[in-house]
């Protein structure tokens, strides 16, 4: 395994960028359509749920220090069952990487370069990410650390300027709020992006001091950022308009005008999105490559990383269009992610405890 060491600050930044990743362009529209003016409230519940889940993964990781989820599965469940679970996680990482790739290429295709085929975006970004993966997690973390301020400021400064368009009437939409029904209909916001962070169980072994604080505060800070951006979107665009847009934040940036001098800042946002998605994709790509390397005991990451471009770029094209993608996310994502984020980690914790108890009893009977 790679000999890398990530600081708490680096892990915090990686968590932040990973969660914000594609969700801040895709999530507000769907969430406002389903929860109307209470979309931001639903997201608070989602990120609190994310913090609780983060605690579960950290607990599991603390029981097996220095091991990734793939290695924990093999150690707890044995070679065959553990190997099968590891293969499931490899598939999971490849799937999320493919979906992130598709989100990025859809965004670029719809908003920036409509004549360029999706596959061109997919292959180009994956080639860059494969190179980052071969260079290692420290390189990805350093790039993330370098860019985090650059990504945050150009996002929040124009957003703050747009506050002059804020209208409280946008929150007076006739809609009866049924909390349980709304939370059930918007459960995809729990999965995307918070259940995806189970991928960090591949990276925990590299984190040094303050792992718990860095990871949980990363989730919390990203949650606050996203809640605020949903709140701003409702206040600026209104429920009716925001819920009919695929990328409402992009539209805010496009329509922004400040003293007739600064306008059309969507190009800044596009670059931001490209960089953020690149980091998230590199991280997921790294998790997939590392999981395969650990499972098959391969040392050279390049042997796995470059051929994976073939798989991820093809997988990214399976959704016919963005509507099919959004529908799949709404219908199946929570149930599907629950297997990897809740069921398997819970089973591993229970099995590890049972094994420990079994060993303890054996020792007692032996003495």
């Amino acid at each position, binding site marked *: 395994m790679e000999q890398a060491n990530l600081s708490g600050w680096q892990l915090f930044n990686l968590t932040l960028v990973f969660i914000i990743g594609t969700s801040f362009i895709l999530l507000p529209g769907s969430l406002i359509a389903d929860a109307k003016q209470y979309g931001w409230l639903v997201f608070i519940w989602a990120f609190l749920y994310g913090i609780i889940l983060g605690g579960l993964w950290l607990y599991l990781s603390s029981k097996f220090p220095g091991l990734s989820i793939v290695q924990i599965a093999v150690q707890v469940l044995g070679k065959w069952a553990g190997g099968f679970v590891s293969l499931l996680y490899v598939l999971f990482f490849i799937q999320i990487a493919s979906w992130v790739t598709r989100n990025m290429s859809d965004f670029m295709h719809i908003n920036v370069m409509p004549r360029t085929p999706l596959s061109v975006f997919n292959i180009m970004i994956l080639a860059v990410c494969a190179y980052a993966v071969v260079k290692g997690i420290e390189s990805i973390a350093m790039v993330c650390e370098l860019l985090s301020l650059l990504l945050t400021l150009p996002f929040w400064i124009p957003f703050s300027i747009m506050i002059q368009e804020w209208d409280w009437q946008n929150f007076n939409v006739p809609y009866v709020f049924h909390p349980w029904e709304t939370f059930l209909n918007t459960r995809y916001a729990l999965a995307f992006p918070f259940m995806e962070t189970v991928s960090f169980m591949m990276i925990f072994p590299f984190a040094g001091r303050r792992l718990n604080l860095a990871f949980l505060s990363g989730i919390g800070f990203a949650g606050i950022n996203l809640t605020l951006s949903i709140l701003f979107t409702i206040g600026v665009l209104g429920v009716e308009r925001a819920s009919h847009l695929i990328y409402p934040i992009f539209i805010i940036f496009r329509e922004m005008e400040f003293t007739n001098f600064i306008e059309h800042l969507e190009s800044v946002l596009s670059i931001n999105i490209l960089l953020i998605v690149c980091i998230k994709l590199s991280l997921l790509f790294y998790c997939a490559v590392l999981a395969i390397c650990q499972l098959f005991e391969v040392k050279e990451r390049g042997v*796995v990383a470059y*051929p994976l471009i*073939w*798989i991820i*770029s093809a*997988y990214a094209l399976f959704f016919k269009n963005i509507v099919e993608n959004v529908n799949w996310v709404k219908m*199946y994502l929570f149930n599907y992610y629950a297997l990897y984020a809740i069921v398997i980690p819970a089973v591993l914790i229970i099995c590890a405890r049972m094994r420990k108890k079994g060993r303890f009893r054996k020792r007692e009977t032996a003495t």
Partner: protein
Amino acid sequence: MTLLILLYIFFHIGGFWILRASPSQKKEMGLFFGLTTLGAVLWGSIILRHPLDVNKAIGWMLSHWL
């Protein structure tokens, strides 16, 4: 399709050429070949308009089993 096959062959030639220079084992070559072939099969299915759509399969499984 021809382009895909050519790309597949060239990717293998390039990959094995690089792997030959490094002290790699058979397992690594097998993994390289397996992953590339799987990716080429997925691409082939897309080009032939009969995609091996894993997303649909997962959706079907979830709606039937849960």
